[in-house]
């Protein structure tokens, strides 16, 4: 789903807890028993993940709806 947001737009974000920049890596997102690996920005130390607004309201919402009707 990384193609549904622009990682470059989120370059300035760091994990405030670990004080290190977030890095693009594979994260599992799941809903109603279905799981998808997605490239997301994530803290390499503590695993905190950033879900961008456009992803949450765009592709994610779409997939949620589709899975709910399955």
């Amino acid at each position, binding site marked *: 789903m990384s193609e549904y947001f622009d990682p470059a737009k989120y370059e*300035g*974000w*760091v*994990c*405030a*807890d670990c004080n290190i920049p*977030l890095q693009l890596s594979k*994260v*599992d*997102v*799941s*809903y*109603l028993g279905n*799981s998808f690996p997605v490239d*997301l920005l*994530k*803290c390499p130390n*503590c*695993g*905190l*993940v*950033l*879900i961008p*607004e456009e992803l*949450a*309201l765009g592709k*994610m*919402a779409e*997939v*949620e*709806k*589709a899975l*709910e*009707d*399955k």
Partner: protein
Amino acid sequence: MDQKQLREQENRCIQEQAPACAAICPAHVDVRGIAAEIAKGDVVAALKLYRKAVPFPGIISRICDQPCKAVCLRKDLGGSIEIAALERACLEFGSSSEETVKQLPRKSKTVAVIGGGISGLTVAHDLARKGWGVVIFEAGDRLGGGLWKSPPDLLPRDVLINDLKIIEELEIEVRLNMSVGGSGANGHGTFLGKLSQEFDAIFLGVGPHSSEIPDLQMNDNGQIAIDPLTFQTSNEKVFAGGDVLRVSTLYPNRELKHSAILSISDGRRAAVSIDRFLQKVSLTASRVNEGSYETKLYTNTSTTTSQAPLIETDLSTRYNIEVAETEAARCIQCECLECVKVCPYLDHYKGYPKKYIRETYNNLAIVMGTRHSNQFINTCALCGLCAEVCPTDVNMGEVCHEARVTMVDQKRMPPSAHDFALRDMAFSNGEKFALAHSAPGLDSASYVFFPGCQLSGSTPEYVEKSYAFLRENFDNNVGLMLRCCGAPADWAARKDLFAQSQNEFYAEYEKLGKPKVILSCSSCYQMFQKHYPDVEIVSFWDVMNEHGKFKKREFPAPITIHDPCSTRRESHIHDSIREIITKMGGEIQELPLSREKTECCSFGGVMWLANRPVAEKMVQQRINESPLDYVTYCAMCRDFFARKGKRTLHIFDYIFGEEKSDLAAAPAVGFSQRHENRARLKEKLLRDLWSETMPDSGAFESIRLVLPEDVQKQVEDRLILVEDMQKVIEYAERTGKRMLNNSTKHYLAYFKPNSVTYWVEYTKNDDGSFLIYKAYSHRMEVGIGAPK
């Protein structure tokens, strides 16, 4: 809902029934379709429809006795549609030389058709096209039988000859000058007996000649006995149709009224039987609505204005194309759609209940794969208006509610459909709002006031005032119960949650000594009617009307009343409201749809949450119905209209509101505010009336938020509550789990307090409050590190 109930509702919808014209037409010419095509300028398509029903269109369009005209719904609205004239126009303007007749490959069996009149020709035509061999035996020296007796100026001979060419094109063998002859002594040696041996089936269509009826059983009227469904005679190989069925050996000289279209219909129906007979399949299976019948279709013509044909028309009139189009446009295009006309939801999905119920049924049966009707089912407001206007009482609200019950049972209800409303209900039944007390100073109650969660959310001050009014009028013996009636759970078909809410109610109700419950919210009233049959209830509005002392108010103009849809069956409440307004000096102009025909504001059935665009159509339709200020008596109706900019008052605004302020223009109350209003109401009443304090609040509640106006609008739109954002920030600040943007210095954090993950971008102000830049949410779960 079990299949039977669904089917039963589906069958009741008569929208798919044929219009009166096509039903009465023995050949079921699609008059409505033909008129529609001509009106939009497509005579070729119109002719195609005509040809489908009538194999000899030139002939019929000139001599048809037009039984359709007697039943056409235009009859008393300017005169029946001139159908035959339109049919002639189809032929004149829609024919082309490229028309070809489709014919199936030749099969081995052959049928004898006795009689070359119109019924026999129809049988020959239909069977030849299906590939059966056909031989026509005609007593005279040409085909056409009685057609040749029609006056030539009515049926020009070239038209007749031209229509009959198809017999040759279909390679039907014609044997002329072959008479059937009278009845033989014992069946052997007769013409029919010989043909039975030679052919696989026989059609007897000898016309109105009783002397020519061969050895077949007769009925008591002296007519050939046939099975009325299949046209089969006592000889299983022999089928009969046309005028021969109407002659009687008892009255051989009786004049017969010939109907060419009836003969065509007989021929068609006999041909269906013969085809099945030759294929050795059931002659009777699924044969409905053949021949002339009266339709069950209902069409409302109350708003149709009278309009006469452009020119006087009889069977010899020929229209030019403009006249034909104008005439075709006069067709009312009969159909029902009574429910669809009043319900924007039913209209939105471009169908009608019969189709919808079928789709609903199919949807529920899907085991694997996408259920496309889920949102449709969840969008219905369950308001019951459809049943009110339907000639056969089809109630889509019941269908959709039962479908939801099934979806929940099947564990196939989309979790997001009702979640927000159910959480709102949980809030109202939680410690922030729920309260049950007898009146200050009393241990039990004769009455208890149940204002409902939405009035408390919108205008808590009116709850206080109406409670005071009730105590004054009933010797202080009125308790108070703050909670939700369970409507969202009922609408979402969550029987479990409803039962839980109900049990909590009963526990408190019994503690109070089973008082009479006074309800001001019409949704609560409906829920109590439906689910609390043993609880005695009374409408607040009936009490107010009886006991209230009303001062005259300023009414600069007449007002109109919007009855909440949940009062549909409660005419006593409609009356009370109107009386109260009249007592205050208001002049009422009723909406076209009011009282038992009122419309839903889109709150019903959790529609507003399940499908926002359709819900908005619903609101828009309602508020467009009158430019006057609306007065209603449901807090949600008021807020839904106000949100769309419609000047709307809650009747409490007149009773308790300040006269000077323009309350009709007051903004709608947002979701977070509703929670806060409820909690504050409880706190204030506890303190003022019972000297009690609220239970302790959660740590997150001390988080103070600052929301710029656009952010406020954004979160309201996204159904994110202040308390959701408080929880995110409380969690992030306590655990340090947040992200920081190095250039803007904004924090971004997330938290999942329920099935939804909320995100908040914020900074901390110097005074310790938090400035919010945006908030959003999703339901998908993030694999690792997702805080719960």
